[in-house]
């Protein structure tokens, strides 16, 4: 039975305006469906509903605007369907283009920050604190904020995200509750060679493997190097959320709720243990490709959005070596915030001089950006490799960043296998 506070009852009854009352109707319904006994005040919201899927999403956002709703807590926005800074890059046509733009504008009118990124956690001011309750949507943002930041969100998505923002409440259920954050499956990674884990592509491949192994359960990874960077954890989480629905993982000695294996499991035993071998990781890597040799037409980087550190690595690779092949288009998806930093540090100029296209506010797998004739695309993103074949009808080659750059130079799949063995 759901119990509401006085303030929540007042919001429901319209005492704070028609916008919060409408939002409370949706939040309460979800709470009842999930069997929650109460709502929880939240510190921030990340909204995914700003990507256009049809009229219903636009009608909903515009209804909230008409009702005078405003976000009550700091709210960031995930990608939209259009690059607002470089609108010519997205080949979306009217009437969908117009509606997609209206949808993005509606969310700005509600008072959300126009961040337009799936990686709001790359900007310090949008990162919640350890243990804070938040309501974040979009699967990679959810798994990152739960696992790496240690804030608490359940799996939220369209409609509920913005209703949480205009009410400041979410159902007290799922991963808001400590008991549900307990590790369930142990993945022992101590058998993986250190040299293999130095490859950026090892992490999304590991994420893919984890997602396939645990589904929606909470995995605990042990035996990983303590100095692993956030970009690696970003790529791992995104792939695990795509292939399995992972919303929270613990990495012993790395993520904040797992100083020790015992704490990650809340003192209990794992339901299952999986020893991750180098062979299994190579297999997971291979599952992310639909072709493994021959000509490529494009390279796609930055899913989830490219970080400043990834720009630095790419700029260094581009700076020493031959020019990119004229028949291969190379794309980076990133946020306008990270792009501004990459421009001030000189990385963006190096990329552009090399002929690389930089897309902000959206992503190459959710909106038409790649040229019409593109058939084979190489990527270092496990998430892109998972979704793009169905979304875009392309073939995918999955490989590390250095192999993506090398292949973009030769125009053919070119790999350095040495560190995978």
């Amino acid at each position, binding site marked *: 039975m759901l119990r509401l506070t006085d303030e929540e009852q007042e919001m429901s009854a319209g005492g704070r305006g028609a916008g919060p009352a*409408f939002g409370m*109707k*949706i939040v309460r*319904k*979800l709470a009842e*469906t*999930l*069997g929650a006994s109460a709502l929880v005040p939240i510190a921030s919201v990340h909204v*995914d*509903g700003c*990507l256009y*899927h*049809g*009229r*219903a*999403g636009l*009608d*909903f956002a515009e*209804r909230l605007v008409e009702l005078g709703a405003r976000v009550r807590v700091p709210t960031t926005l995930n990608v939209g369907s259009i690059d607002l800074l470089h609108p010519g890059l997205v080949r979306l046509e009217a009437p969908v283009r117009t509606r997609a733009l209206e949808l993005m504008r509606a969310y700005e009118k509600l008072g959300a920050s126009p961040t337009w990124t799936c990686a709001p956690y790359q900007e310090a001011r949008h990162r919640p604190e350890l243990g804070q309750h938040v309501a974040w*949507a*979009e*699967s990679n943002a959810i798994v990152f904020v739960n696992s790496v930041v240690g804030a608490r969100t359940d*799996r*939220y*998505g*369209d*409609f*509920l995200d913005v209703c949480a923002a205009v009410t400041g409440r979410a159902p007290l259920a799922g991963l808001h509750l400590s008991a549900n954050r307990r590790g369930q499956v142990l993945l022992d990674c101590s058998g993986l060679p250190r040299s293999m884990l130095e490859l950026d592509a090892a992490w999304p491949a590991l994420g893919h493997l984890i997602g396939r192994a645990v589904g929606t359960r909470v995995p605990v990874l042990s035996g990983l190097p303590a100095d692993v960077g956030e970009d690696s954890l970003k790529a791992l989480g995104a792939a695990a959320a795509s292939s399995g*629905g992972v919303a929270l993982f613990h990495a012993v000695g790395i993520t904040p709720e797992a100083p020790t294996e015992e704490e990650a499991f809340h003192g209990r035993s794992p339901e299952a243990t999986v020893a991750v071998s180098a062979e299994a990781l190579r297999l997971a890597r291979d599952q992310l490709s639909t072709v493994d040799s021959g000509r490529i037409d494009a390279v796609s980087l930055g899913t989830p959005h490219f970080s400043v550190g990834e720009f630095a690595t790419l700029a260094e690779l581009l700076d020493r070596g031959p020019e990119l092949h004229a028949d291969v288009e190379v794309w980076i998806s990133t946020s306008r915030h990270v792009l501004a930093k990459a421009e001030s540090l000189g990385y963006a100029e190096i990329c552009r001089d090399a002929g690389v296209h930089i897309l902000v506010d959206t992503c190459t797998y959710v909106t038409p950006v790649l040229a019409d004739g593109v058939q084979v695309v190489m990527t270092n993103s496990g998430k892109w490799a998972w*979704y793009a074949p*169905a*979304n875009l009808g392309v073939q995918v080659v999955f490989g590390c960043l250095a192999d993506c750059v090398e292949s973009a130079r030769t125009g053919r799949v070119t790999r350095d296998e040495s560190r995978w063995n």
Partner: protein
Amino acid sequence: MELTARTLHEGVGAGPLLALDEPLSLWGGTDPETGLIIEARHPQAGATITGRVIALSSSRGSSSSASVLAEQIRAGVGPAAILLAEPDAILVLGALVAAEMYGRRTPVVELSSIQFRDLPRAALASVHATELHARVSLT
């Protein structure tokens, strides 16, 4: 066959039963404009959810499926009713928003695991879901 089950979203709907052998993500798995199942790896790929009473264990995958369901109900290509084996917040939200925005109520019902397992492969299904409980008739 008459079943009594838990209402997740109120409404009335009837149509041929479409029992899905695997979970389905409406986003990426169905066409928002036609209601056809387009996920090539799905056992029921090529079937339509339009006007069907669909039974699925859960929705799997993207939370954007809430938007897709609301859009399909708005456009008149949504299912007649949804039978689930576990509460699925994404589908309930999609049905709720369609009701709030367009006044089109598509019932969502949670069956017990035994009721779900024993669903016939083919039947005409009629769903009547009220605040108190849901009745599902299969003939």
